[in-house]
C-alpha cells in the first residue's frame, strides 16, 4: 500500500512478462484521503470564521497570547476526543478482524464505577468519606496500582466473555457485544445503586489531569499501530478480517485470536474508564453512554472498513481528530450543539458511502 516502497527487484525481475501492472493505477493509502478530509474541514471552518466572524479557527489572533496557532483550541480538540479515541483503538482492531464491539461504552461505565470505589480517600474535609463503599474494610487511600489493576481486570473479563462467546458459540459479534453492552450498563447501575462515586485519591486523580489523556491516547495509538503493522497478531487480524476461511486453511487459530482481540478491546475500554473517571474526579453509572458508537464512527471515518481487513490506527486517529474538529468548529461558529449530532450522523454515513464507492471504483479498475 505504500507508493514509496518501489523495490528494484520487484520492478525488474518480476515486472516483465504477460501480466502488466501499472504502478500509477495503485491507489494511495486510504489514510491520505482521510487526512485530506481533515485539512479540508479545518480550511472550511477557517474560511467561514474569517468571512462571517472575522476570527480565525486555527491561528492565534489574540495580542496577549504568543504563538502562531490557537493552541488552546487545538488542545481542546484533541483532549475531547482522546478518551473515546482510546476506545476507538480497540474497536479498530476488532473491526479489522471482521467483528464489531458495541459493549465498550458500557464497559467504561461499569469499570469507572468499580475502579473508582477502590480509589477512595478515607476522609473528606475531616469527615469520613461518605462515598467510600469499602471504608468499613479499611480499603481507602489504596495505592493507585490497586484501582488500575481492578479496572484492567474488569475490562479483561468483559472482553474475554465477548471473545469467548463469539469464538466458541459462533454467535454474531453484534449480538454478543450487544448483550455485554446491556449487562455491563446494568452492573454500572447496580454497583452503587445508581449513586455516583467521587473523592478519588490524588494519585488516581493524576492519571487524567491536564493533557495526560492525550499523552495516553497517543502512546497507545503508536503502540497499536506498531503492533498491527509489525507483529504476527496484526497480520492475523487483517488476514481473518480479509478472508476467514483462508486464514483457517493457513493454520491460524481463529478462535484464540478472536478471544485475544476482544480481550484487548475490553482492556482499552477500561483504560479509557480510568482516564475519564480520573479526569472528572467522579464515576457515574451513565458514563460512556454512546461512546461505543462514537468510537466506531471514528474508525469508520478513518477509513476502517466495516467488512474487515482494511484500516489502520493512524486512520482512526485522524478520524478522531475530524470528530474533534467538528465539535470544536461548531462551538467556534457559535452554532447550537444540536447541529453537531446531526452533522456527525451525516458524516458517519457519508464516510461509509465514500468508502464503498471507492472500493467499487477500484474493483472495476482492477
Amino acid at each position, binding site marked *: 500500500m505504500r507508493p514509496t516502497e518501489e523495490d528494484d*527487484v520487484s520492478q525488474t525481475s518480476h515486472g516483465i512478462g504477460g501480466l502488466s501492472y501499472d504502478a500509477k493505477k495503485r491507489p494511495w493509502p486510504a489514510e491520505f484521503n482521510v487526512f485530506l478530509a481533515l485539512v479540508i474541514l479545518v480550511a472550511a471552518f477557517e474560511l467561514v470564521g474569517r468571512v462571517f466572524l472575522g476570527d480565525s479557527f486555527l491561528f492565534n489572533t489574540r495580542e496577549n497570547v504568543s504563538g502562531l496557532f490557537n493552541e488552546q483550541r487545538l488542545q481542546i480538540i484533541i483532549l475531547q476526543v482522546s478518551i473515546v479515541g482510546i476506545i476507538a483503538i480497540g474497536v479498530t482492531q476488532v473491526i479489522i478482524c471482521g467483528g464489531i464491539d458495541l459493549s465498550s461504552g458500557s464497559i467504561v461505565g461499569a469499570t469507572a464505577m468499580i475502579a473508582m470505589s477502590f480509589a477512595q480517600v478515607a476522609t473528606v474535609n475531616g469527615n469520613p468519606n461518605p462515598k467510600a463503599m469499602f471504608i468499613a474494610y479499611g480499603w481507602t487511600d489504596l495505592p493507585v496500582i490497586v484501582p488500575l489493576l481492578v479496572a484492567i481486570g474488569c475490562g479483561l473479563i468483559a472482553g474475554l466473555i465477548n471473545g469467548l462467546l463469539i469464538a466458541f458459540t459462533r454467535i454474531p459479534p453484534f449480538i454478543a457485544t450487544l448483550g455485554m453492552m446491556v449487562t455491563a450498563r446494568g452492573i454500572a447501575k447496580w454497583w452503587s445503586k445508581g449513586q455516583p462515586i467521587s473523592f478519588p485519591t490524588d494519585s488516581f486523580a493524576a492519571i487524567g489531569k491536564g493533557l495526560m489523556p492525550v499523552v495516553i491516547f497517543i502512546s497507545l495509538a503508536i503502540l497499536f499501530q506498531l503492533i498491527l503493522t509489525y507483529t504476527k497478531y496484526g497480520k492475523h487480524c487483517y488476514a481473518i478480517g480479509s478472508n476467514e476461511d483462508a486464514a483457517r486453511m493457513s493454520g491460524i487459530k481463529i478462535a484464540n485470536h478472536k478471544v485475544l482481540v476482544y480481550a484487548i478491546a475490553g482492556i482499552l475500554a477500561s483504560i479509557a474508564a480510568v482516564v475519564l473517571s480520573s479526569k472528572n474526579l467522579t464515576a457515574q453509572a451513565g458514563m460512556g453512554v454512546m461512546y461505543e458508537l462514537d468510537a466506531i464512527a471514528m474508525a469508520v471515518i478513518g477509513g476502517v472498513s466495516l467488512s474487515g481487513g482494511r484500516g489502520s490506527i493512524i486512520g482512526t486517529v485522524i478520524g478522531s481528530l475530524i470528530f474533534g474538529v467538528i465539535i470544536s468548529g461548531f462551538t467556534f461558529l457559535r452554532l447550537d450543539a444540536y447541529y453537531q449530532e446531526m452533522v456527525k450522523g451525516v458524516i458517519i454515513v457519508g464516510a461509509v458511502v465514500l468508502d464503498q464507492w471507492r472500493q467499487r471504483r477500484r474493483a472495476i479498475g482492477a
Partner: protein
Amino acid sequence: MSDIVLKTENLTKHYGGVHALQEANFELRKGEHVAIMGDNGAGKSTFVRQITGVEQRTDGKIWFDGKEVNFAGPIEAREAGIETVFQNLALADDLDVPSNLFLGREKVLFNLGPFSILDRKAMRKATEAALVRTAVKIPNLSSTIRHMSGGQRQCVAIARTATFASKLIIMDEPTAALGVQETAQVENIIRTLKENGEPLILVSHNMRQVFDLVDRIVVFRRGRIVANLRKQDTDGNDIVAYITGAKTGQAELQAA
C-alpha cells in the same frame, strides 16, 4: 516402494447414501505429474479432499512419503508436505504477496508469542526466491491481492506451494477461471515444477492442457477410477470414452 510419494488403497468416501468415491487405488512416484480427469461429480474433488485431510475418509488407507497417514485436517497434511492450490484459492485479499505466502507460518524476528515481531525482510526475500523458482511474474510484491487479476492471484497461490519444502503439490482446476494468456503462464509454472522434479496432481477438465503437461492420466467415473494410462499410450478420444463411460476400462486396469 521407496520412490512412491503417495499411495492410496481402497480409498472410499460415502456422504450418507451417496457413494462419492469407491475403492480408489492410486500411486504417484517421485517427480511424476499425474492428471485427474472426469466428469462433474465423478469423484475428483472428493478424492483430493480425502488426501488433503479436508474430509475424513469412510474407508481405505493412505501412504504418504513412505508412512501410513491419517490427517485430521488440511493443516496436518500441509505440515507433512502436501501443498494444495484450492479452487477457491484461499488467499487473503487485503494482504500483500509475502504476507499471503507466509500466512500462518510467518518468519519471526523476536518471538513474543502472538505479538512476535515479523521478519518482513526475510519473508520478502523468500517470496522473491519462490517467485523466481516457479517463474511466477508478479510486478509488485507490496500490492495487495485485491488489486490483482485472476491469473496473478492463481500464480500467488501456486507460488505459495513452492515456497515451502513441499513433497507433493495438488492443484484443483488451477486455470478454470483464467484467460488464455494467464492459463499459459500457469502452465509454464507447472512445467517449471516438472523440471524441478516436484511431483504434482493436477485436477483438470482441459484435455489439451493435460496432454501438454502430465506423464499419466487417471480417469474417474461415478466415484471409481476407470482408467490409469500413460500419456503416450492414449489419446484424447480414448480419454473422452473413459470419461463418458463408452469404455469401462476394468480389463485394462487389471492388466496394468
